[in-house]
């Protein structure tokens, strides 16, 4: 069965995020005041073949640990859904 997966890669908490900080500092210039907690990461979409959602999740978590993220500086959140 095919599963649509979204991997959200973000800087680990405690790791500085200069891009997020720069965006946060720039928002007030456009009138967007009071915005906090800006973090910049990346999104990776993929389609995997697995018997069920749990298997698909565990497969992609393994990819994250070994390749898609660097666990020293990045965290990953894996979202699995049925392929349309």
């Amino acid at each position, binding site marked *: 069965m095919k599963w649509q997966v979204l991997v959200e890669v973000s800087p680990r908490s405690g790791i*500085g995020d200069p891009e997020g900080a720069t965006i946060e500092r720039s928002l007030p210039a456009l009138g967007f005041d009071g915005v906090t907690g800006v973090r910049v990461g990346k999104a990776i979409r993929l389609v995997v073949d697995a018997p069920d959602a749990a298997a698909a999740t565990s497969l992609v978590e393994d990819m994250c640990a070994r390749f898609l993220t660097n666990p*020293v*500086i990045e965290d990953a959140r894996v979202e699995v859904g049925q392929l349309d």
Partner: protein
Amino acid sequence: MTRRVGVVRFPGTNCELDTVDALATLGAQAELLWHGDHDLQGVDAVVIPGGFAHGDYLRPGAIARFSPVMAAVNAFARDGGPVLGICNGFQVLTEAGLLPGALQKNQGLKFLCQPQELEVASTDHWLGAGLQTGERLHLPINHFEGNYVCSGATLEELEASGRVVLRYVNNPNGSVNDIAGVTNAAGNVVGMMPHPERATHELLGSVDGRRILETVVQTA
């Protein structure tokens, strides 16, 4: 006997010819190793030069780590073979697990290309022979992702065991503890963000890079 030094070229590497030229000027038989090769052609030492291996896609070094030659570099390093990673090469070595920590984007979000003053923090590694702890070197840096970071436990271990090799005198990129270069526990793998190969002739503004590369040539 002339020492043979292998300089690894990945698609996207761009400092390999400068590195080969600098090493050859200093008396080594420097030769290029292709990333797709499965062996190191019997070289005595390996240098992973700067550039953008595999376009730095995903993260610097993330794809390079899986190039066939890296299995051979890994085995060579684990057997005690001398390995130096410069700039992108340092990033590749951290991704490959041969050096601890990671390099993230510079704190100021600027690509930095400038001469930099560095302090020799330790000589207890394969490139320490020609250096003295505490002395200053002038070497250029040229990177966007040179902000060294590691876990608190790793940092403690690096500092306690003298594995920080070089520190920035004026930290340009936000690296923790001003770290510009580190070595592994055995001292045979060294990674550094500055480019010694670009400081090997008076015309380049500094010859301090020779102090490091001469040891590559002699120790290899």
